């Protein structure tokens, strides 16, 4: 029976008696592991930040986006119309919300104040649900008002402040590009997304886009279905409807999952590169450990002789030295995980983001460190265990 506790204690004592050397030996492992943990924690943090941002804009995994043009074109020809949107609403299975964006430029005039918001959109009555932005004063326009071409406008908080100051704009008459509208609602504040003011927006019924904004083509269409699992069906339905109407595929469809996949792929590729660098660092660290272990075996030839003379078996010596090597790499991994997590936390708090503790990477770092320690410890340990006791006892340091 091999008792593993005693050799572990022996190895531990021997490492502690050579603290500086043990630390320097494991530095390669510490740096490698810390680098991976830092970058993976930051990557995970960035990923969760991006996903939260996407989620806050209402885009969930049950949504698809239809955009004009074939995917690669930078300035696609816009071909989708209001009729296309109506057809999709009728024919896509399990459709929950449909929100076409008719993007134009609208000059708003109230009394003597005139203002051009960043976004003037022809929208559907699904807007507050699809984009998760409700009207907090007044109300959004209804499907009936949209279909009935009611001249009503819903504005964001920025416009409300610009045109009306502290007064409630609901019920006020304004002009958009010279056409009279009644303000029926103010949207809840969204703040800015990636530096753009999402509250600088005016929304009119999609049916009035051509009249008011001079826009007949849809910039993009946002569709949600009841459940994530229905997304592939919805994509197929939308394709079928649009191809039937356009006689060609002059549009492309993004799924939310696709976007998340792209982001994940980028982050995973990053992690992969970092892991490759870490693997090299661990390999170099491992060779360094083997080198030091070989030196240590030579230095401690006499100790090995003494241990053998008083009854240590070759196996006992072997286990002792492998344990030393594994202990060195494992403690390097643990220190590396602590340092890496702290570094990630410091950098992310500096960027005002949240770091995510990279548990997965931490577990694999420990596993890899264990394997490196074992692999590079075996040869020196074998040399130690094979020493002839008489020769070893005669060895002069």
């Amino acid at each position, binding site marked *: 029976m091999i008792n593993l506790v005693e050799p572990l204690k022996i190895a531990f004592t021997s490492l502690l008696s050579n603290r500086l050397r043990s630390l320097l030996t494991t530095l390669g492992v510490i740096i490698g592991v810390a680098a991976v943990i830092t970058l993976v924690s930051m990557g995970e943090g960035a990923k969760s930040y991006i996903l939260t941002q996407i989620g806050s804009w209402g885009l969930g995994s049950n949504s698809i986006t239809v955009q004009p043009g074939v995917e690669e074109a930078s300035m696609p020809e816009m071909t989708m119309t209001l009729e296309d949107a109506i057809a999709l609403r009728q024919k896509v299975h399990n459709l929950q919300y449909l929100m076409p964006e008719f993007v134009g430029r609208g000059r708003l005039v109230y009394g003597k104040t005139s203002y051009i918001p960043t976004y003037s959109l022809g929208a559907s009555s699904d807007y507050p649900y699809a984009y998760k932005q409700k009207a907090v004063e007044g109300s959004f326009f209804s499907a009936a008002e949209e279909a009935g071409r009611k001249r009503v406008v819903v504005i964001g908080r920025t416009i409300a402040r610009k045109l009306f100051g502290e007064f409630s704009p609901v019920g006020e008459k304004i002009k958009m590009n010279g056409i009279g509208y009644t303000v029926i609602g103010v949207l809840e504040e969204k703040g800015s997304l990636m530096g753009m003011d999402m509250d600088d927006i005016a929304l009119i019924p999609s049916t009035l886009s051509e009249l008011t904004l001079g826009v007949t083509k849809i910039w993009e269409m946002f569709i949600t279905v009841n459940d994530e699992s229905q997304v592939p069906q919805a994509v197929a339905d939308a394709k079928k409807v649009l191809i039937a109407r356009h006689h060609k595929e002059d549009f492309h469809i993004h799924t939310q999952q696709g976007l998340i996949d792209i982001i994940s792929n980028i982050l995973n590729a990053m992690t992969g590169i970092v892991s490759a660098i870490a693997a090299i660092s661990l390999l170099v660290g491992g060779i360094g450990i083997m080198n030091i272990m070989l030196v240590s075996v030579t230095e401690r030839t006499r100790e090995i002789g003494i241990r053998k003379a*008083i009854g240590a078996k070759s196996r006992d010596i072997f286990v002792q030295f492998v344990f030393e090597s594994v202990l060195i790499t494992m403690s390097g991994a643990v220190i590396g995980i602590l340092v890496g997590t702290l570094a990630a936390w410091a950098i992310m708090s500096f960027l005002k983001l949240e770091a995510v503790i990279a548990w997965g990477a931490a577990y694999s770092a420990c596993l890899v460190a264990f394997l490196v320690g074992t692999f590079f410890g075996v040869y020196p340990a074998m040399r130690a265990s094979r020493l002839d006791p*008489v020769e070893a006892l005669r060895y002069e340091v």
Partner: protein
Amino acid sequence: MSSSTVVRITDVTRVYFMGKVEVQALRGINIDVFKGEFLSIMGPSGCGKSTLMHIVGCLDRPTSGHVHLDEVDVDELDDNSLAEIRNKKVGFVFQTFNLLPKLNAIENVELPLIYAGIGFDQRREKAAELLGVVGLKDRMYHKPSELSGGQSQRVAIARALANDPSIILADEPTGNLDSKSGDEIIRLFQELNQRGITLIIVTHDQEIANHSKRIVRLKDGLVVSDLPAGRQAIS
């Protein structure tokens, strides 16, 4: 073989190579050591005393011949079994003490007990008891660097006694000590011998050999005399 034979050495030879030169360290040694004996092995440098000691202590194997230890033919054993014999049946005492410098006295004494698989409490108790026997009860937690030569050698003797071995083998145990400490060590050996412990001492010092009960003289790898200690003066 008598049941009281602890070591039986039969026609043992040992040949080794120093570079390409063949050295005949032992040329055919026959010695029986009985239980309770206190034997000195004497001879000039290079006569093969240390080689013989290593073979008796199972650190080395003879080129030919047989060694029986406690009636076990040790040349039939593999390395692991030899390690077990060194651990349980043999206690070594070296000229240079050979304590582990990073362990304190009691930890050094515990080492053979660790390799014998004895648990912490039991071995600590045993080690403390043995340090008491060698008169170092108050030095248990001192490192070898904090002990005098005589004290270090006593720790080494306590370590040799740890597993209640059949025989203690001491290779020039007083060689690195001043005469006072050396005398103390010899007296300790005599005491242990009186308790029934079998001892073999390698020495080139007649004074020390005179304290044992039997003296074997080696020359050029052969036994030249094997007499009780009282009759040595004649040769």
